[in-house]
């Protein structure tokens, strides 16, 4: 294997792939990047066995072949190289030479056979989705996944694909985020997939918004592909908990509040809220929302905010952080909150959102003590 590549192309390719290289691994080859030289150019790939990223960059290939190179060292070298073409060659199965201007490196790699094979995902049965749509769903929902290991299903984002629409849902069992949007019929099979957020983050990072992504499903893997870059991910095995059942349909108390003002008031309250529970009390009354918080050994705080409220007065407790977090993602200036009772789920939605997508967040209350 021997090829010449511009310093910039090399850096670009490495930047795409190195994020998929695990920081620590017991399998040494996973710390390496697979470099394959073909007639078309070179392909760089990395994986942590859950997720794999591969990208093609243009290069002048003299002889084809493949080898794996320590990812961290190669990236560091590429970063420091002088602006000149880079010549990379494999010497036998495990050695690489790299020349650039007057710089010369010899690096030890590992044979390509040791690199794990990519998941078997066939793109001949693929469907297409605009990357920007996918990214929009990802960035409004994946924050809500659970980071606990106890319920692996909740560690993933549920992606529901239907002929006319798609939806993503994420929850940690205390609060939930759901966004859906209509799509042109893609011919995709209706399917429910639970995707690790790490993979979705790669999608968000690697694909420009206006790119058409080709997506295909294997046995328990999913592949995303643009002309030059592909991401493969393991899917989490379901079933996902029946989230539709817990989304309240009969919340009859409704408040509409200014998102920024509500956020500020909540942030003031969290200063005095308990470090463990962040518990605050919200009292809704016609036209007015009152906040209060009491924390033993610390103190208490009160605040008020004018809101448009319809329904009987309501006292309800929340982990203020859950509300604050959800408010960060509400895309409108005003937010619509609905309630049923102090022990029932509350919802938050954008108010007056002129967008084909619809967005709903749900937060479970905290018990209030009297």
């Amino acid at each position, binding site marked *: 294997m021997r090829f010449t590549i511009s310093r910039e192309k090399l850096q670009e390719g490495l930047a795409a792939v190195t*994020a998929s290289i695990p920081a620590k691994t017991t399998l040494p080859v996973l710390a390496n990047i697979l470099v394959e030289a073909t007639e078309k150019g070179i392909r760089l790939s990395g994986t942590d066995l859950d997720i794999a990223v591969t990208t093609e960059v243009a290069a002048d290939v003299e002889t084809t072949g493949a080898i794996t190179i320590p990812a961290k060292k190669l990236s560091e070298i590429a970063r420091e190289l002088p602006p000149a073409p880079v010549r990379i060659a494999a010497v036998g199965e495990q050695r690489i030479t790299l020349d650039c201007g007057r710089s010369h490196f010899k690096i030890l790699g590992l044979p390509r056979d040791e690199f794990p094979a990519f998941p078997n995902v066939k793109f001949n049965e693929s469907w297409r989705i605009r990357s920007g749509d996918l990214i929009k769903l990802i960035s409004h929902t994946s924050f809500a996944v659970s980071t606990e290991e106890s319920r692996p299903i909740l560690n993933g984002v549920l992606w529901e694909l239907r002929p006319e629409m798609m939806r993503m849902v994420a929850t940690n069992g205390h609060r939930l985020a759901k966004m859906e949007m209509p799509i042109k019929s893609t011919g995709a099979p209706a399917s429910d997939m639970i995707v690790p957020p790490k993979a979705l983050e790669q999608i968000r990072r690697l694909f420009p918004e206006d790119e058409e992504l080709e997506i295909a499903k294997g046995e328990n893997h999913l592949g995303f592909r643009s002309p030059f870059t592909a991401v493969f991910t393991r899917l989490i095995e379901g079933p996902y908990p029946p989230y539709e059942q817990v989304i309240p349909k009969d919340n009859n108390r409704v408040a509409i509040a200014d998102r920024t003002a509500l956020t500020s008031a909540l942030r003031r309250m969290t200063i005095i809220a308990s470090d463990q529970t962040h518990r605050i009390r919200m009292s809704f009354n016609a036209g007015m929302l009152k906040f209060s918080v009491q924390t033993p050994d610390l103190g208490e705080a009160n605040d008020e905010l004018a809101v448009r409220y319809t329904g009987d007065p309501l006292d309800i407790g929340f982990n203020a952080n859950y509300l604050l977090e959800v408010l960060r993602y509400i895309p409108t200036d005003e937010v619509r909150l609905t309630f049923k009772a102090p022990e029932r789920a509350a919802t938050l939605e954008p108010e007056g959102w002129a967008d084909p997508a619809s967005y709903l967040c749900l937060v479970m209350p905290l018990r209030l003590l009297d």
Partner: protein
Amino acid sequence: MSVASPPRIAVLPSAVADQIAAGEVVERPSSVVKELIENALDAGASSVDVAIEDGGRQTIRVSDDGCGMSPDDAVLALERHATSKIRSAADLVGVRSFGFRGEALAAMCSVSHLELETAPDDGAGTLVRAAGGAILDVSPIARRRGTTVRISRLFYNAPARLKFLRGSRSEWRAIVEVIGSMALTRRDVRVSVTNDGKPMLSLPASATLRERLAAIYGGAFAGRLLDVDDVIGTTHVAGLVERPSDVGTATRRAFLSVNGRAVRDTGIVRAAEAAYRSTIPAGVRPTIFLDVTVAADAVDVNVHPAKAEVRFRDRWPLERAIENAVARALGTFDAGATLGRSHWTFVPPSPPPQALAPVDVEALHPDGPDLEGLFEISNNDTLEPPPSPAAPASAPPPAPTTDVPPLTQLHRTYMLFEHEQGVVLIDQHSAHERVLYERFMGTLERGEAPAQRLLFPMTLHLGPAESEAFERDRELFERLGFEIDGFGGHTLIVRAVPMPHPRFDPERCVRETLAALTGDRDAGVHARHERLAATVACKAAIKGGDLLSPGEMRALYIALRDTKLPAHDVHGRATIVQLTWDEIDRRFGRR
């Protein structure tokens, strides 16, 4: 039956009566030593020399540099009920001197050969010689200011008592006990002791209890003890107590003084020991040295012939005060185990007073805005934060970190930080367990914890023993923040859970806690609370092997620092181990 039988009851000759009375005061050589030293101290001595021969069976001599006596007083002193220390019964209340009965010298004199040399000033003095309670002669002598009393041939005229004396070694040991306790009571007095002419102990006057203990038992022993010093109401409790991690590793010693008087009092000792509960294994007892000062009229010292016991007017608050004072001493980071020999005091800096705003402990919060690990991908340096389409408000300002040292996790099990005098290791599981235990105890004793309602209620299927355990403690689980419905049979539906920290796994916690509590006997309310809090804390705490982020370590450090007993977990293991520079330097051969 007109023949009168001889009367069976007769008044004893006074010498015999005195001998019997003497038995109460003078039991064995060590009681002689005790009475003589007390007299010396009452005389204002700043230096006391004790010379013993044959375990006190031959001779006991105690010399002091106190106020001495005039020739008349020297003779009077040997009379029964002759005392200079009180004049009326009313003076007994709050009496400060060791002596007040006027018994001791008379009692000793009646069962031994006694020589009393005394002078109120350097120069002209008096020598009184007596035996079996009778004065043999009184003569003028020249000597330094002070008094020397020499008791020889103790019990020479009381064969029954003589028979009960033990061997000289055993009597010597009893004497050493007495001298030790006097030396601890009055640290300001220089003490020297010889046995059969050999110097055995020489204690310079000391400023502190620790200094005196160092002189008696060695600096290493004294250095490892923790300071107690607390005023609660009118009670002042001061002294030194053993680190929980050291308990059981050496001879246990207990010393207690009340208003400057060494006494035995099991109630107080038990109260002090109660403060160790949950920090040491059951059955081992800590070493304690405590000086208790109470209002003079709160204690009666005249209840025991050898004044070894006292009676308190109101015992309960006193014992609480003692338990609290000791608990507070154990409740500092300083109480952590020390590796190595030197002792140093680590007082974690308390948060600055203006820091009323909560320190940012995002790590132990239910998923704070700073979602650790959500988009954590393999190569962290290339990771930029997820974008927020709605231009979210900026994250809260970083917390003040000045009061938390940089922490490093070792072996996924310990947190390490550097301190002026060494490095400190904290066991993450033990530490977290301690934090949670105290929090849960607070919740159980004082009300309810917040309950986070669940979107998807959990269903638990239990065995019969677990169901029974649940039924017994159901109400306590609810107070801890669980909302659980029985569903008939052995099925539970958990609708709400407490969130003690973001890694909390409520399902596993409930299961394991119930499994651990099966077959528990019915206990008192407090004991049940302790048991449940300890079990839940153990099950809920992060484990060894869990990788902690810097934020989590900082939060744990702060939470631990704010506990009452940070240095020990609920099983009595150390949570904190200190490795001093001294020890490290020594191991590297730098000193």
